[in-house]
C-alpha cells in the first residue's frame, strides 16, 4: 500500500529551478533512501514533503489525502538533533505528545515506556548536553517515532556522527526497525548508509534536482554491518557510484 506519494514536484526560488518534476512514493513499512550529492535539492524536497514549503507545482499525498503545504502531518528528524536544552531527555521525547494535547504526566509515561527498547534507559532525567552525540540522535529518533503517525522523514539523520558512532547507530537503527513499523524516507549522501538501511534507493541528481534512477535493494534482512564487506554489497555500491557519476 502506498503510504506517501509525491507527484511531479517542482520548486524554484527567484526563477532558479531547484528541483524539477520529482515523483516518488513510499510504501507502508518501507525504508527508502533519497541519495544525492550536495546541492541536488535534497533538503528542498524534504521541506516540501514535510509541508514546510509549498511547491510551485505537484502534490504530496499521505494515505491518499492531499497534504501539500500542510505541516504537522509527518514527523521529521534532522542532522541537528534539535533536542531542547532546557528540557530533560524524557521531556524532549514526550514533547510531540504534549504538543498534540496530552497531559504532561501521561505523555511522560508513554514516552518512558520506550526508553529501554530504544537503548536510552537511564537518560530520562539527564539534559541533552550530558549525552553523547550517538545517544542524542537516538533520543531524537525516538521523539520522531512518537511524533509520527506512520511516516518519518529523516534528513541526513546520522551524518554529523563520527564513523565509529555512526556504525553503532546504524546497527541500533536496523535492530529497532525490525520491531517497529515506521515507513521512513531517509535523505542521505552516504552510499553505504543508503544500501545498508533501505529497501529502495532513489538517486537524485542536479541541478536542478531530478530523480535519475531508482534501485531496489534486495539484500536479505535482517541486515547488519558485516554486510558492508560482502560481494553483493560491493556490486551494488559500484553500480550506484557509476549511476551517480553518470548522472552528475
Amino acid at each position, binding site marked *: 500500500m502506498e503510504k506517501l506519494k509525491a507527484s511531479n514536484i517542482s520548486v524554484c526560488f527567484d526563477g532558479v529551478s531547484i528541483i524539477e518534476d520529482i515523483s516518488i512514493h513510499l510504501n507502508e513499512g518501507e525504508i527508502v533512501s533519497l541519495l544525492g550529492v550536495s546541492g541536488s535539492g535534497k533538503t528542498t524536497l524534504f521541506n516540501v514533503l514535510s509541508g514546510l514549503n509549498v511547491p510551485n507545482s505537484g502534490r504530496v499525498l499521505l494515505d491518499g489525502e492531499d497534504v501539500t503545504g500542510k*505541516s*504537522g502531518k509527518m*514527523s*521529521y528528524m534532522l542532522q541537528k538533533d*534539535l533536542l531542547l536544552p532546557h*528540557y530533560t531527555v524524557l521531556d524532549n521525547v514526550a514533547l510531540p505528545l504534549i504538543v498534540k494535547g496530552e497531559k504532561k504526566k501521561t505523555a511522560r509515561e508513554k514516552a518512558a515506556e520506550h526508553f529501554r527498547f530504544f537503548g536510552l534507559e537511564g537518560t530520562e532525567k539527564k*539534559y541533552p548536553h550530558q549525552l553523547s552525540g550517538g545517544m542524542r540522535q537516538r533520543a531524537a529518533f525516538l521523539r520522531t517515532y512518537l*511524533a509520527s503517525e506512520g511516516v518519518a522523514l529523516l534528513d541526513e539523520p546520522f551524518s554529523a556522527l563520527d564513523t565509529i558512532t555512526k556504525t553503532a547507530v546504524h546497527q541500533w537503527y536496523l535492530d529497532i526497525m525490525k520491531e517497529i513499523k515506521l515507513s521512513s524516507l531517509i535523505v542521505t549522501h552516504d552510499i553505504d548508509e543508503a544500501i545498508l538501511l533501505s529497501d529502495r534507493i532513489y538517486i537524485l541528481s542536479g541541478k536542478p534536482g531530478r530523480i535519475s534512477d531508482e534501485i531496489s535493494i534486495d539484500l536479505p534482512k535482517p541486515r547488519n554491518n558485516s554486510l558492508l564487506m560482502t560481494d553483493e554489497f560491493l556490486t551494488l555500491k559500484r553500480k550506484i557510484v557509476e549511476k551517480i557519476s553518470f548522472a552528475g
Partner: protein
Amino acid sequence: MTKKYQSITSKIAPAVSLLVLAGVWLFVSEGEIVPSYMLPSPVDVVRAFVADFSVLMSHTAVTLQEAFYGLLIGTALAFVIAVLMDRFDFLYKAVYPILVITQTIPTIAIAPLLVLWMGFSMAPKITLVVLTTFFPITISLLDGFRSADPDSINLVRSMGGGNFKIFRHIKLPGAVEQFFSGLKVSASYSVVGAVISEWLGGFEGLGVYMTRVKKAYAFDKMFAVIILVSLISLALMGLVALLKNIAMPYKRKK
C-alpha cells in the same frame, strides 16, 4: 592542583584589591592628607553606620519596598510588551523607537514631574522605578524570543503546534537566560531609581536620609549610606543570580 590554585587566586584577587583600596582610604584620611571633614576615615564611617543602624534599617525597608514593587511592575510590564512586540511585527517597528526614546530621558529630570503629578506618596517613586527597570528586561526578553532557533520552531510546528506551543516550549524557556541578565541590571537600577526619587520629596527612605545628612554636612553618614546602597544593590544582584540558578537547572554542573 593548578586548577585549584587558579580558583583560589581568582577568589583572592578581588578581595585583595578591595583591601588595598580600603587601606589607601584609611591612609589618606587618617594621615590627614585630605581634611577629615571632607573625607571621613573608614573607621568613622563604620561608627556612623553602627550609631545610626536602626534609623538606616527603617529607611532601607521603605526604599526596598519601593524598589521591589517598581521592579515587580516593571518586570510584568516588560513581559507584556516583549510578548506583544515579538508576536506582532508592526508593533515591534512602531514601539521600539519609543522605548529607546524613553531611555534617553534622564531619570533625574522626570522625577520632579512625577512628584508634581502624584504627590509625596510612594506612587511617584514606584513609577520612577518602573520607568527605569522595564527597559533592560524588555530588550533582553525580546532578544531571547527573537533568537529562537527557526529549526526548533519548525519542529514544534511539524508536531502540529501553533504559536502558543512554540512560545511555551521554545521561545519562553529559550529566553530565560537573557531575562535574568536583564533582571540583574534592572535590580540594581531599581534601588538607585528609588533613592533618586526620594531625593526630590518624601518623608522616608534612604534618599530622604541622604538629603538630611547632606544638609547637616555629616560626611561620615553620607559615606555610610552610600556604601549601604551599593551593598543593597549587590545583594539584589546576588539574589537574581540565585533565582537564575533555580530557574535553570539545566545550566548547573552535575
